[in-house]
């Protein structure tokens, strides 16, 4: 099993006191499979994604990726896992503003020690970014920025791709285009995909789907 | 000059202060000459005061002042720098358009300034007023002007008030006061525009006291007028809660008649802006008992003495029932 999440709990301190976002979530995902995570606003779906990505730690429970519990890792271990095994595409602010498009794309792969120029060239062409390589992120449109983010995520060939509403900030046509590219590239690399979305249509296109309500899988 | 104005302000305004340890003038004075031409260190304040109306060989009118003041911090004299006697010299030359003033300060005890009765010499620095058998010499200089004059008395000394005991207020403050108003004077004025030979007549005032003013008196207006008919009038009005005025009418031969408070009046007719102040420079002066009712006007309204203690002093012209010329001194206009 690529990913196994068991009895995850997460509570945040808020102005009104502690708020339990996740109250014992279980899910699994096999390599090459795709899973849609849906739920109302505030249902905890982004938090769950962050925990799986090793960006934050659960209060209780396990996140096991390829047989390793990332909750038991230290900061450096989780960072290493984020570099190589897992790729994350956020809704926005994905890119490093001080680097050019080409440097952004190569960044994670080089960090992970899996820099493959031919593969990156292929990715850039597939994503239609050849003309943008020397530009800086703030010179790109939203759709172009997300293409760069996808290229960067796919470049080290991660085992698991996490996406948090990756097209949420884009207009409808651009969103469809970007989504097509993401899905086909993930499929080509054979990675598992976990995507947070509120779009039922989109959720239907993935292999599986779970719905979060009040911190539990409904 | 560094000498604080306060010391000499005491010479005027401070004249009303208590006279601890100092001698006090008393009525029925007996003067002895030449001794009383000299200094009286037991008294706090004393002066040798010469004013002169002059005519130049250029036809212009001039006025001249030479004054030596003595003020004592203690009623004693002592040799050396510790002397409590302080001396101040004022000299001025007035022309119709200009007024030159200079001042000197010194202390007694070291020979820098003083007065010797016989042979008579009053001096401060190189300034002098000295008498020899032939004539008196009068010299002074500043950075802009100088004068060197000879004087000859042509009449007797005259004594003011009650034979030289001059009462200054209703409460009885008084000074010893006599004059020599009959000097003929001639000599040379050195002015920025050149030298002028001048002749005219001069008036010496001698006065000493320890507390000549009452505490409420703030200043005075003093007139010395020489009429064309040869008579002379000295009159002063002390300004206080009430004006206190005294006058002496002097005949051409030196006979005097003293007038009590109330007889002599002086009323301002016109004021001038002088050194940022308003000062009366035209007066109506009357002595009704003697049939005198004259207008007295300044030769130069700007005759301001910008010295440690500033005052107005300058030549005047007289018209009305009598005509003539004279000198006017006004203090306390600050």
């Amino acid at each position, binding site marked *: 099993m690529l990913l196994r999440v068991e009895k995850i709990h997460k509570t945040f301190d808020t102005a009104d006191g502690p708020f339990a976002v996740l109250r014992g979530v279980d899910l699994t995902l096999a390599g090459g499979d795709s899973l849609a995570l849906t739920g109302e606003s505030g249902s905890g779906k982004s938090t769950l994604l962050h925990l799986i990505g090793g960006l934050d730690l659960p209060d209780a429970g396990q996140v096991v990726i390829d047989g390793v519990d990332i909750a038991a890792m230290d900061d450096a271990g989780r960072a290493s896992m984020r570099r190589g095994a897992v790729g994350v595409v956020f809704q*926005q602010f994905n890119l490093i503003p*001080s680097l050019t498009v080409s440097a952004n794309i190569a960044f994670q792969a080089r960090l992970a020690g899996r820099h493959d120029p031919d593969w990156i060239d292929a990715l850039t062409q597939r994503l239609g970014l050849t003309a943008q390589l020397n530009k800086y992120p703030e010179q790109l449109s939203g759709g172009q920025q997300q293409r760069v983010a996808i290229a960067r995520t796919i470049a080290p060939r991660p085992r698991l791709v996490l996406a948090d509403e990756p097209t949420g900030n884009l207009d409808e046509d651009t969103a469809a285009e970007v989504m097509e590219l993401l899905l086909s590239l993930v499929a080509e690399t054979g990675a598992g995909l976990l995507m947070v979305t509120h779009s039922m249509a989109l959720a239907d296109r993935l292999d599986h789907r779970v719905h979060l309500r009040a911190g539990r899988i409904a | 000059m560094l000498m604080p104005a306060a010391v000499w302000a005491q010479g005027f305004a401070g004249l009303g202060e208590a006279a601890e340890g100092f001698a006090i003038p008393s009525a029925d004075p007996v003067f002895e000459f030449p001794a009383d031409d000299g200094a009286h260190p037991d008294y706090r304040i004393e002066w040798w005061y010469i004013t002169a109306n002059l005519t130049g060989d250029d036809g212009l009118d001039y006025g001249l002042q030479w004054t030596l003041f003595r003020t004592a911090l203690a009623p004693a004299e002592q040799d050396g720098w510790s002397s409590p006697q302080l001396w101040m010299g004022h000299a001025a030359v007035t022309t119709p358009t200009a007024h030159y003033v200079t001042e000197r300060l010194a202390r007694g005890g*070291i020979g820098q300034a003083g007065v010797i009765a016989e042979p008579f010499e009053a001096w401060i620095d190189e300034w002098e007023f000295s008498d020899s058998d032939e004539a008196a010499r009068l010299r002074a200089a500043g950075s802009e002007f100088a004068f060197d004059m000879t004087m000859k008395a042509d009449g007797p000394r005259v004594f003011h008030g009650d034979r030289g005991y001059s009462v200054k207020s209703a409460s009885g403050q008084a000074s010893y006061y006599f004059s020599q108003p009959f000097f003929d004077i001639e000599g040379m004025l050195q002015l920025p525009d050149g030298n002028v030979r001048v002749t005219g007549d001069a008036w010496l005032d001698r006065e000493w006291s320890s507390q000549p003013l009452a505490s409420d008196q703030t200043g005075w207006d003093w007139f010395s007028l020489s009429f064309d008919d040869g008579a002379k009038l000295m009159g002063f009005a002390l300004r206080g809660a009430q004006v206190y005025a005294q006058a002496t009418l002097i005949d051409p031969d030196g006979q005097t008649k003293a007038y009590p408070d109330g007889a002599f009046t002086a009323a301002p007719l016109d004021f001038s802006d002088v050194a940022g102040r308003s000062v009366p420079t035209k007066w109506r002066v009357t002595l009704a008992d003697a049939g005198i009712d004259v207008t007295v006007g300044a030769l130069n309204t700007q005759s301001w003495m910008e010295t440690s203690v500033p005052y107005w002093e300058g030549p005047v012209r007289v018209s009305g029932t009598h005509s003539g010329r004279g000198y006017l001194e006004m203090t306390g206009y600050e």
Partner: protein
Amino acid sequence: MIRATYAALWGHWWRNPLQLFTLLAGLALATALWSGVQAINAEARASYDAAAATLGEGQFDRLIRRDGLPMTDTTYVQLRRAGWLVSPVIESRVANARLVGIDPLTAPGALAPMVSGDIAGLQDFIAGGGRVVAAPDVVIDGAKTDPAVAAGTAIADIATVQALLNRAGEIDLLIVDPEQPINQMPLAQVAPELSRQTAQGGSDIARLTDSFHLNLTAFGLLSFAVGIFIVHGAIGLAFEQRRGTIRSLRALGAPLRLLIILMATELMTLALVAGVIGVGLGYLVAGALLPDVAATLRGLYGAEVSGVLQLRPIWWVSGIVIALGGTAIAGGAALWKLSRMPLLAGAQPRALAIAGGRTVKMLAVVSGVLLTTAAILAMTATGVIGGFILLGALLVGAALGLPVVLRVILQYAESRSKGVVTGWFWADTRQQLPGLSLALMALLLAMTANIGVSTMVSSFRLTFVSFLDQRLASELYVNVETPTQAEAVVAYTTPRVDAVLPLMSTKLQVAGWPVDLLSARDHATYRDNWQMLFATQRPWDDLHEGAGILINEQLARGAGIEIGETVLVAGKDLSVVGIYGDYGNPIGQAIIAETLFQSLFPDVVPTRFGIRLPVHDTADLVAGLERDVGLPEAAMINQASIKALSLGVFDRTFTVTTALNILTLAVAGFAILMSLLTLTSMRTPQLAPAWAIGLTRFQLGRLELLRTVMLALLTGALALPLGLTLAWVLLAVVNVAAFGWRLPMFFFPWEYARLGGFAVIAAGLAAMWPAVRLARTPPAELLKVFSSER
């Protein structure tokens, strides 16, 4: 509406007290440095003024006896009676104070103002009152203290002092009133034994010590520049951070005018508060440093400066004005930007522009123009004003050019970097540059000032010490007061020592310049020790042939005299055979052969002797002179002790310089801290993606620290040539223009390394806290960047 609007604006500070603190603290520190330096300068100058007022030094001509003996009261009275307006002075050292007796009745107006006042004051003073008025640093029983009296001095009436010193009837000198009557007898006729010394215009001491004050003024100027950069940075950021609030307020209908007026008022209020705090801090700084400054000036120039600090309006007002003015300049620019901001401009603090924008180009152009101007001035400038314009152009040009140069360096480093993290590090550093530029400019100026002033002070020290070696060649110097004493000293010492070198001097005019003319005996001491800047082949031989003269650099430069030219001295034409360095002397000096001196000035007797003897015999000779000739110990000066004193003085100078060095660096460090803290909120969106794709927070924090230290090092490297240029301008342009002599420049690599170390430490300390904060940022904070609610 005004209240509601203001409440919204003020709320920003309430929620971000740290920003408020940094704004206030930055302003206050800048003001403190400025007003501290000003306070020291103002205090020293006031002390010289008091000295000039108390003793008439330099203001008035003086009459003294040619033979140096006191005159009598009688001479004074004779002069007065001959029409000379002179005033007597008697003076002596009593314990550690200088006791001066004057005559308040005749002293010229500017003299001894402390005696004026009410009649009671004067009555206490003269006529047996016996009052002594003393400077605050003089302790005399029963004396009245008055800060208007020169430091180290007490004043009393001449009667009091004559009695105290048991010198009845004696006067040391007469001060000549500038206004004299039109008729007076010639001096030669009244008192032929007196000679008149002409006033040198302005205070002697003030002119002497100007070179020291130049140091402090340069520091003051630079600290002001550093301060302005800090204030500008603080205010610019305060505005950027409130863009969101301002946009919302305007959208809700608050008029732009009102917003601008409110913010301007708020700024000025904050500036006033910070200014007052800063002046208070400056007072503490000055109070701590002043004793050292006073000791330095006393030892170096004999200038008495009271070690007690007075609250003088000149510097506390200037401190407040600097705070308000700096804020007005900086705030004006920010408000102008605000007034032109479109209503719906981004609510976020503007993403820092990618380097390469128009701003950088403009900076490059302005900086280029200024530096070119400086280069041209360096070749052409001659006057003090030109020197200071040169300094200004150089420093401002360099400061403005700093971001441009750093950007080029960083770009190069990025292009050469191999590792992915290294590449990102350089790229990210370059992106941070605009936000850190102001702080870095402040650091550049602070380091430049430190390097420049340290070089100047240290060069001065080296030059002065070797100059002392040259000038103090004799092992012992003996001062005498009377011709009889002089004869006794010569008779006693001649058989006991290697050589007795009498030193005569007189004052006169050479080529229209006031000159101290000295005599020199034909002796190897001079040939062996004196170094000439320019000279004929055998200057001493030429001198002793009787037709030669040696002149100092000041006279040569001032009167434009060169080797081989002739000058007229006391009616005799002499050929200039040498020009020598004469550091610290404000006036001209010249040396002629002893024999010639004696024939030209037969009345002048030597009052000083240099004595050559084996060093170890010095103590015996001193004891002998004291015992057998009756010379007071104070009349004999051991060469070694003068040198020790001079070195001690320099050590104190260094204490002051070092303290100011550390203070300026601390201020620059604070500027860096402030910029970093303010940037932190903008940094999160830039760092979060790097963190999300695999860098740890610890790595990020370490890189932040490294970045700041690296920038400080780069800035320091640029400050080195700039600081050396500054020192060169001070030594070779400003000093020559101001004092007529050029100081040779030396280099002090260890000193620079130490300063560089200080700068790195300051920058490191400043970056430490923001870096630690970054390393400890909770993941939730970083994740907020990506959340869709943002």
